[in-house]
């Protein structure tokens, strides 16, 4: 089984379709969407529809803070994000909003937990941005593998008998052996709004048989996505971010 993990698509249809096409070429047969389908980008409706179609085929989809904000109005966000959330809400149909509203905070499959932010308190949207927070998420998850998003830069935390997880910056395209006698927390990186200075979309692929985990970077037409953001009248900073990848 090959499992494609996509996080933080943020209504970027160009990035999403590029990642899905790449994953299909790599032989992905299952898909997980790790939250934040919407927010920032100009195509919330088409992205939600596309992902809803995958879920009908058995894909796992969990809720992110932007998905939550669109349907719950309770989040405090930065002004640009808030404007994008308001804009998004008006663009979604009742069915699309209902889809987001019905998303679970976490999903478990065997020894694996899928969660947008930290398993420690999934609804508090804690950023897993250091080893301590990774340790807490791993401890709360009670799983061998934890796959997350929320933080936009790809990183793999690993913990063995030492107990304290160590961060590792993966090299794109290189399969990393992930033996089940250790614990692994992977932040797959953002598909729709990369922030590490590289414009290419992030996603990761799990190969169950090995077992291994490969982080991928997929160049996509960010110029088209940025043009749509501008045409929609969304904040200019959101378009610029796609052009610079930060």
């Amino acid at each position, binding site marked *: 089984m090959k499992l494609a993990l996509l996080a933080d698509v943020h209504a970027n249809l160009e990035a999403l379709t590029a990642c899905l096409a790449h994953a299909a070429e790599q032989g992905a047969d299952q898909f997980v969407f790790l939250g934040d389908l919407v927010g920032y980008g100009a195509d919330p409706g088409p992205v939600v529809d596309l992902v809803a179609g995958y879920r009908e085929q058995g894909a796992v989809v969990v809720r992110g803070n932007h998905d939550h904000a669109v349907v719950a109005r309770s989040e405090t966000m930065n002004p640009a994000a808030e404007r994008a959330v308001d804009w998004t809400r008006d663009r979604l149909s009742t069915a699309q909003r209902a889809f987001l509203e019905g998303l679970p905070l976490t999903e478990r499959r065997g020894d694996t937990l899928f969660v947008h932010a930290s398993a420690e308190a999934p609804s508090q949207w804690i950023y897993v941005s250091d080893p301590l927070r990774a340790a807490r998420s791993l401890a709360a998850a009670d799983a061998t593998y934890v796959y997350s998003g929320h933080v936009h830069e790809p990183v793999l935390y*690993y*913990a063995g*008998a*030492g107990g304290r*997880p*160590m961060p*590792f910056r993966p*090299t794109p395209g290189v399969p990393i*052996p992930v*033996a089940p006698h250790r614990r692994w927390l992977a932040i797959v990186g953002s598909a729709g709004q990369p922030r590490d200075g590289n414009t290419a979309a992030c996603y990761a692929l799990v190969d169950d048989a090995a077992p291994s985990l490969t982080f991928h970077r997929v160049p996509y037409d960010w110029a088209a996505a940025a043009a749509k953001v501008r045409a929609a009248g969304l904040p200019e900073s959101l378009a610029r971010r796609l052009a610079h990848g930060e």
Partner: protein
Amino acid sequence: MADPLEPGRVVDGFRVEERIHSGGMGVVYRVTGRDVAFPMIMKVPRLGPGEPGEAVVTFEVEKMVMAALKGPHVPRFVAAGDLARQAYLVMERIEGRSLAEWNGRGPIPLEEVVRIGVALASALHSLHQQETIHLDLKPSNVILREGGEAVLIDFGLAHHGHYPDLLAEEFRHPMGSSPYLSPEQVVGVRNDLRSDIFSLGVVLYELATGRLPFGAPTTSGGLRKRLWRDPVPPRALVRSLPEWLQEVLLHCLEPRAADRYASAAQVAFDLLHPDQVVLTERGRRRRRLGLGMRFLRWVRAAGYEEASLPRPSAHLSGAPIVLAAVATAHTNEARNEALRLAVRRLVVAGENTRLACVTVIKPSPEMVGASPDQAATSQRIKHLVLLRHWAESLRLPPEQLSFHVLEGGDPADALLEYARANRVDHLVIGAPPRDVTLGGLLGTVATKVALDAPCTVTVVRPQS
């Protein structure tokens, strides 16, 4: 200690033959089977209660790293057994002599030190180019094939830039063999390829002098001494040892990684071209550093800070060997200037790049009124002068530059052989004239070099 496997047993299609070696971390058997055409060994780690906890992790590391490595300087990887069932590693059995056989034999002759040093540095460079740092380089982990090539074994402590460092996560204490550990390994740094260059320096120092530069300390205080204390200069131990070799050895053994050679290929380069080694105080030193200098080093060591380091391949891309093929026999200022312009973009003063300026002359020229030997010498000097003059306006410091007059009937062959032997990364050469026909083009030096070179080639054409 009971052996994990009995001879005669079959594991995943491998028949266990006799035991070859039994150590603290594991047992090594000869194995046959699976229709593999070369001789094989099976390494079985000692796992379970009462066995060293490191054994599991070093097994995992070796399995991961060996499966990723290729080339003549590592045993071919065949198969690995799962930790949950029967842990084992099957690999090629390397025929040859362990460098440990030289232990206690030193000092050995200079030519042998150089030969082994070049072989070892080449093997290390090949490893580094594959993102791997050995971190446990010592004589018993080196096998010399009959042809002289070095093969590195035992990757249990290695670091691979593409994979999470499992050992760094679980163990804080320095791992490896105390005489050969680099200063940064002593303080727990595991991702600097120049650590292997330090260990290479220890191995060569031992071969050349018969002594270990830092002894074999057993306490952490003893280990830390190498962060600031310099070894006895090799020439104080072996009078006949040339200054250039002391320069090379002490350059490898600098306590600060940034002061060492930037790549193992550059160590091999200096060992192959003793006349091009720039001598400094390091090479001439007769005794250890004085109290003032020692104190300065001690202060520096006390403030040792771990820097974030690039992956091995990224580090090496900043330390290439560039070859400029200068046609000294045909003076053409436009071509020479075009070549300099191209080289200037590749080689910057103060960086870790090395520039080798090379020309090829016809062998044994005939001159009237001089013996063939004298004629050859004057001919070489003439071209050496032209090479030096060509490089002058580049304004590079002497330690980044070297000059080589090669003799050969076929300039392309001579350049290619030089590029291979010296692990050149980038070759810059003048283009053939524009008026050459297509058929003639295939016979030109630049075309032949571009077709067969083991590295990147830039073919330079003057503007006009």
